């Protein structure tokens, strides 16, 4: 199970990284979201995986580590705030700069600048 989980985290990371490296704001935002998923799963896994151990006192015999859960919760909320900001910023950039390119310009005819 752990290997599968790690594979998913890795895949999400890779996909996030790839999309973040695109040149338009929308895929970048999507990439950041994927990266955030990867981060959350990763942080969550730092408390190890536990099945049937919801950390509610009195509900089971063994408990999952509650601390990473709380951390991920905080991370999700902060991530949401940040995503919201960057999305609106992308709109603003498009409005101000007339392009949704992350550099605020249209690419030159022979492809992008490196």
């Amino acid at each position, binding site marked *: 199970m752990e290997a599968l989980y790690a594979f998913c985290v890795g895949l999400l990371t890779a996909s996030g990284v790839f999309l973040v490296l695109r040149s338009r704001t929308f895929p970048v935002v999507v990439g950041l979201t994927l990266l955030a998923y990867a981060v959350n799963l990763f942080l969550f896994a730092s408390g190890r995986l536990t099945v*049937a151990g*919801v950390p*509610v006192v009195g*509900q*089971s015999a063994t408990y999952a580590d509650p601390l990473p859960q709380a951390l991920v919760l905080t991370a999700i909320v902060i991530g949401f705030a940040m995503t919201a900001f960057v999305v609106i910023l992308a709109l603003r950039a498009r409005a101000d700069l007339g392009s949704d390119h992350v550099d605020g310009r249209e690419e030159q005819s022979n492809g992008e600048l490196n």
Partner: protein
Amino acid sequence: MLNWIITFAFALLCLALILNLWRLVIGPDASDRILALDTMYINSIALLLLYGVWQDTSLFFEAALLIAMLGFVSTIAVCKYLLRGDIIE
């Protein structure tokens, strides 16, 4: 016995989810995909409920409730986008 049934039910639900994904992938139209996604949400509710029964815990009930109550909002939003572009006007 119940465990066997639950395992079997899990298998059916997984199959259902895979089929949903299949429709989501092949489309052909955005509407089909939205429908597939919506179905996926509903199948997830079933999955969560089944999981609760299996684990003997009702702690996942609220999660299922949340999907039932809110899951359709994003579907509506996408539909509205396709219809009107601006979803809050």
